[in-house]
């Protein structure tokens, strides 16, 4: 082993058949299973893509720059998480706590972005210039057709995108909502570990498995978001899809 004996390599356990730790194996089996969970949600989203009958579509509501920022925050939280774990194994408890807090804060920021996004979608407001409409999306065209018939200057809609509005709303809120729920659970987990780390001897450079498992979960939530960002957001606004 190249490393010094700073910490036992996580996931190793004497007395098991493979030498691997039970809980770590359980965690990986769970993550494999959770792939199927998100896979089914993504499948539903994709099957219904472009099948909405009315209402705002991805191109009307998505704001790619904003979501890029929240994606960036979540990616950074993953880095912060590995640094927390790394600090712990080097017996740098202060560094460990700082990075744990920063991970949780970044996770919370991501959730904050999501709340902002959900509420702005739900209150989405469109206004179409009847005289000089310019290039319109399908939804704007619909509002134009409905509202500009009798010679008004503007047509508008305050309907917004709610889960009940159309298939896009239904599948979008469910998929991203469950991802958000996973992140929230992750934050609770990280904060619990942070609290526990003040209790003597519960989390130490040698007893780092709890942090290791939480980190795996946290990164998994991150990779799910990598998929969602591409498949839902980028492809969603892509005109040819």
């Amino acid at each position: 082993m190249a490393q010094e004996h700073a910490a036992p390599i996580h996931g190793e356990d004497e007395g098991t058949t493979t030498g691997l730790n039970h809980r770590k194996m359980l965690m990986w089996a769970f993550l494999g299973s959770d792939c199927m969970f998100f896979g089914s949600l993504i499948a539903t989203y994709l099957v219904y893509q472009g099948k909405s009958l009315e209402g705002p579509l991805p191109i009307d509501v998505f704001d790619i720059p904003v979501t890029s920022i929240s994606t960036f925050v979540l990616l950074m939280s993953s880095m912060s998480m590995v640094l927390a774990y790394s600090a712990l194994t080097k017996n740098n408890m202060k560094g460990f706590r700082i990075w744990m807090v920063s991970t949780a804060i970044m996770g919370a920021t991501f959730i904050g972005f999501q709340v902002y996004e959900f509420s702005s979608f739900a209150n989405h407001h469109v206004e179409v210039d009847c005289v000089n409409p310019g290039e319109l999306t399908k939804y704007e065209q619909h509002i134009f057709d409905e509202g500009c018939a009798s010679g008004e200057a503007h047509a508008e809609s305050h309907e917004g995108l709610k889960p009940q509005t159309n298939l896009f709303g239904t599948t979008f809120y469910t998929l991203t909502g469950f991802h958000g729920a996973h992140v929230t659970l992750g934050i609770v987990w990280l904060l619990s570990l942070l609290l526990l780390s003040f209790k003597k001897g519960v989390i130490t450079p040698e007893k780092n498995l709890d942090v290791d498992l939480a980190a795996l979960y946290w990164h998994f939530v991150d990779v799910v978001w990598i998929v969602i960002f591409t498949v839902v957001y980028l492809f969603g606004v892509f005109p040819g899809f």
Partner: protein
Amino acid sequence: MSQELSAKEHTGHPTAGQYFRIAVILCAITAVEVGIFYLEFLGHWMIPILFTLSAFKFALVAMYYMHLKFDHKLFTYMFVAGFILAACVISFLLLLFGVYS
């Protein structure tokens, strides 16, 4: 999955610096993704390009941050089994619903 698998294959873990470099790469790819997304002339090529880029990000996080690269292969099998199966189910459902046609 028998005894021979318990052979330790650890080559040590990335350092904080390496973690940071990976984070930089991840952010750079995301920036590229968003950038590519505004290049409308790419047309349908955008889909495979974006797919490849996000697959690369996925792999980086799984291999380094989740340290699959340094861990026992069994963990990789467990995770990849779920991942591939999910990808297959998604593809087949899309095929059955005629999304590709």
